[in-house]
């Protein structure tokens, strides 16, 4: 193709053809101006479009426009058998696919009434890989957040360490991001031989790296100045807006579904729930949310160590152990409505199922995604701040657009 050819001709009409905004340019007053951020902008973490009404340099209102990554998960789920939905579930929060699978598989197992039969080794393996994935997800959150506000080095250091997790999970499941590893009633495979030892080596490797990251980024003076007292989310507003996960805990509430609902083998494990304490500024600011994520990585490391002790001790591999032994041939729950929720790295992931008792496909499968709800709090906490602080606030909420848009 000749290089001098004009590939895109600007046309005034093109703007009118795009998705309509909420604000009208003709109705602007004084020094008001509309700024459009995204959908193709690195700091919006994907295809999110923010329409910002500004008065000079101060933000008056933010309107998120979502749906650019809408893949009709719920419609697809209505036409597929329960077990075939799992690959779609992976693609919701695609940086924490194991956690999504865990929530979904657990929900269907409870509907079938087989959740108490699942072998302990399967449960510990699920928690092990889910916590590994939680660390990977928090790494992405912290690393990209640093990059959003100008710290480039931590991103590379974190991606280097995250790579070890992805390789471990690839070894277990065959895929780097979208695993399809947890099945309803069991697992695709047992852990590969030698996985526990390699995982223990990884834990030894990661511990000093976490301290490094904390010193490099979290306690860094520039980072603290940039994030403390920015985007403060008070606790009552947080609860009323339904936010969950590190965003809610950053606002100071010790609320974690792993403890509250005590699902899977979490009640047998010893771990703490870190909360934001306003160490560097106000409780519920951007620094607190990032701090909570960093502390949660330490807690996940603790959980992984305990899982490894169990998986090499009481519940070690045996020659005749079949992780697929309980996988039902036919998945047909009784007619019921069922709501299951679980803690994934970003908050409460819920699935609402309606089974009609006559078919193998869900009559309705609704996904309550935490990123979707957490994002809806953004307009509330970004009024009257500077545009640069909006980017800092958005990054600290840690959304994944695959889950926002489903």
């Amino acid at each position, binding site marked *: 193709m000749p290089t001098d050819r004009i590939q895109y001709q600007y046309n005034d009409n093109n703007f009118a053809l795009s998705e309509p905004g909420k604000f009208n340019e003709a109705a602007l007053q004084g020094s008001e101006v509309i700024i459009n951020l995204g959908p193709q902008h690195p700091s919006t973490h994907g295809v999110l479009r923010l329409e910002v009404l500004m008065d000079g340099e101060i933000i008056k209102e933010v309107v998120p426009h979502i749906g650019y990554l809408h893949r009709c998960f719920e419609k697809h789920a209505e036409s597929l058998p329960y077990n075939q939905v799992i690959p779609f579930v992976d693609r919701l929060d695609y940086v924490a696919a194991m956690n999504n699978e865990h929530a979904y598989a657990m929900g269907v197992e*409870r509907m079938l009434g087989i959740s108490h039969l699942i072998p302990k080794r399967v449960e510990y393996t699920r928690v092990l890989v889910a916590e590994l994935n939680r660390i990977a997800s928090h790494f992405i959150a912290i690393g990209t957040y640093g990059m959003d506000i100008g710290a480039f080095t931590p991103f590379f250091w974190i991606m280097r360490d995250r790579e070890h997790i992805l390789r471990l999970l690839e070894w277990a499941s065959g895929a780097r991001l979208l695993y399809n590893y947890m099945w309803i009633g069991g697992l695709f495979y047992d852990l590969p031989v030698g996985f526990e030892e390699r995982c223990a080596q990884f834990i030894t490797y990661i511990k000093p790296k976490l301290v490094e990251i904390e010193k490099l980024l979290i306690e860094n003076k520039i980072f603290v100045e940039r994030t403390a007292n920015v985007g403060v989310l008070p606790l009552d507003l947080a609860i009323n807006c339904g936010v969950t996960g590190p965003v809610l805990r950053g606002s100071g509430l010790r609320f974690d579904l792993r403890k509250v609902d005590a699902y899977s083998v979490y009640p047998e494990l010893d771990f703490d729930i870190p909360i934001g304490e306003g160490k560097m500024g106000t409780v519920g600011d951007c620094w607190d949310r990032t701090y909570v994520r960093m502390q949660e990585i330490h807690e996940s490391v603790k959980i992984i160590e305990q899982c490894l002790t169990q998986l090499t001790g009481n519940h070690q591999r045996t020659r005749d152990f079949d992780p697929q032994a309980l996988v039902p041939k036919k998945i047909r729950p009784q007619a019921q*409505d069922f709501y299951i929720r679980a803690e994934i790295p970003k908050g409460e992931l819920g699935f609402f199922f309606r089974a009609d008792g006559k078919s193998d496909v869900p009559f*309705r499968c609704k996904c*309550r995604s935490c990123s979707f709800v957490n994002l809806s709090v953004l307009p509330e906490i970004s009024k009257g701040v500077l545009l640069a602080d909006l980017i800092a606030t958005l990054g600290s909420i840690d959304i994944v657009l695959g889950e926002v848009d489903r």
Partner: protein
Amino acid sequence: MKADRQCTPHGIHIHADDVLAVCTLLHRHADMYFDMLSCITGIDNGVAAGTMEVAYNLYSIPYHHQLMLKVTLPYSQLRIASVTAVWKTADWHERELFDMFGIDITGHPDLRRILMPADWEGHPLRKDYQQQEYYRNIKVKY
């Protein structure tokens, strides 16, 4: 009002006109205090049944109670009151309900489509949904 034990968590059926009053009571009452709205789900029961349902999943953080509120709407009257005055999180959930099922939310502050484009035709999660053939001269069916 009718109890429903077929669902987990347990639920109650209420009339569509009472939604706002019941939600306000559940939210304010000191013994119930459902301070978190987890999820709002729309369900289309199909053309044969001629009804849609809306399910609200409520959670009380201090009491650790879960509750499911269910409302049945006939096709002829797809209208329900907004609960955004009680829980702010209902805003986007209700916009999704409107977008996917075409249920009119009365009293909603900003009722626009949320996931589908503003000029999309039809409401995709209805059981009788037929996708349009062309969207802005792009063939939809592949």
